[in-house]
């Protein structure tokens, strides 16, 4: 368990650094909780059981003091922890629960709401279908249209093209970009690619789910369209297909403003 211990140590250090001045009491509480958790973790028999019981408390304390930085750190630490623990002890307890709890605290979306969706650790903010060569937007879907879609499509394509020509080997394509707690996943097809803007913890399961979704779209709705000249009609059709694919599936998981 030593690696996990280090991670807790680091987590504790980070929380301390950021919040000591403004919130000494809260951080003390966190330390106490983490200490307890740490102790329990040293006892492998009790391990799963105790986490199950105490994690809610830990997170309740963590919640109010979580800044942006910590938010990112915790996301990645949990990702690591989860992998590590699953590998080592095959513990049966659900880290999904923990993630949900944190997420609920951070976003203000109720746990129940988050529970509705399977891909709990992340929210999908916007999807783009983009023509490869020109970088022209074929269609986009987002419940809020957070980003200037045409420009984003162009810039993404420019970045993609730059990376691929500067560092790429033959036939290799850019697959993801990260920024702070955001990640943009790219799914490449022959003449176009999909870009997915996500926030939060992105695990292999989500990536695969999205991959399936896009394969399906490329096969069915988009497969029958001719992209020779992208115009308003094509855009409408693609956006309808995108919203059909993502509205229901990920609707409940879209993040409320925080």
């Amino acid at each position, binding site marked *: 368990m030593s690696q996990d211990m280090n991670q807790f140590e680091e987590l504790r250090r980070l929380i301390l650094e950021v919040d000591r001045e403004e919130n000494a009491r809260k951080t003390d509480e966190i330390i106490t909780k983490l200490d307890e958790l740490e102790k329990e973790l040293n006892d492998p028999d009790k391990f799963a059981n105790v986490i199950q019981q105490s994690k809610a408390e830990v997170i309740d304390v963590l919640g109010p003091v979580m800044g942006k930085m910590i938010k990112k750190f915790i996301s990645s630490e949990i990702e690591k922890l989860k992998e590590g623990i699953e590998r080592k002890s095959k513990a049966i307890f659900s880290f999904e629960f923990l993630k949900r709890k944190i997420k609920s605290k951070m976003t203000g979306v109720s746990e129940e709401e988050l529970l509705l969706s399977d891909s709990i650790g992340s929210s999908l903010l916007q999807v783009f279908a983009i*023509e*490869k*060569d*020109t*970088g*022209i*937007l074929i269609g986009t879907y987002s419940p809020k249209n957070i980003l*200037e879609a*045409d*420009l984003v499509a*162009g*810039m993404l394509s*420019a970045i993609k*093209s*730059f990376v*691929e*020509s500067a560092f790429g080997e033959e036939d290799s394509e850019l697959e993801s970009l990260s920024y702070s707690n955001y990640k943009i996943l790219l799914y490449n097809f022959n003449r176009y690619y999909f870009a997915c803007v996500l926030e939060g913890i992105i695990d292999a399961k989500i990536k695969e789910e999205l991959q399936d979704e896009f394969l399906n779209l490329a096969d069915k709705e988009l497969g029958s369209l001719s992209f020779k*000249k*992208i*115009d*308003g009609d094509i*855009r409408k059709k693609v956006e309808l297909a995108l919203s059909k694919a993502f509205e229901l599936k990920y609707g409940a998981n879209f993040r409320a403003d925080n």
Partner: protein
Amino acid sequence: MKSITKKIVLLGNEGVGKTSLVKRFVHSIFNDQYLSTIGIKISKKTIQIEDTEVNLMLWDIAGNMMSKTLYQNYLKGAHGVFLVCDGTRPETYEAVIQEKDMHINVDFKESIAYLIVNKSDLMTEIDKNKLESSKVDFYTSAKTGDNVEFAFQRMAENFVDTNT
């Protein structure tokens, strides 16, 4: 209304006024300060040609990237190319002529290429005589706005005509 989207790439040496042309066209502003573009700046402007809404995606490429391997990829799929030079600097004119004849007209035959001589407000008769006027599509000034809108408009009309 019908709506189409087209990609226009602006090429040319450093300081010839590519960014200024885009700013003039998109935001109707001009700035005397020279802020060299880093990498690429993409802008968008929508204009209407008859019954078609034309969305122009403008790829303004930094002059210091005038190395074929670097910007080759950005030219991919370009519907239009603006080859821009500075009317007071003949070497920038030579560079775009060369680029147009040897590269654009060879590897990107599908795209419509315009040769733009910018900074017309600063040009003297002597400057003008140094250029082969038959090769020039437009003399523009991002500073006064002269011919800027007209050049983009022409390009857009071309798109509408060829987009059948």
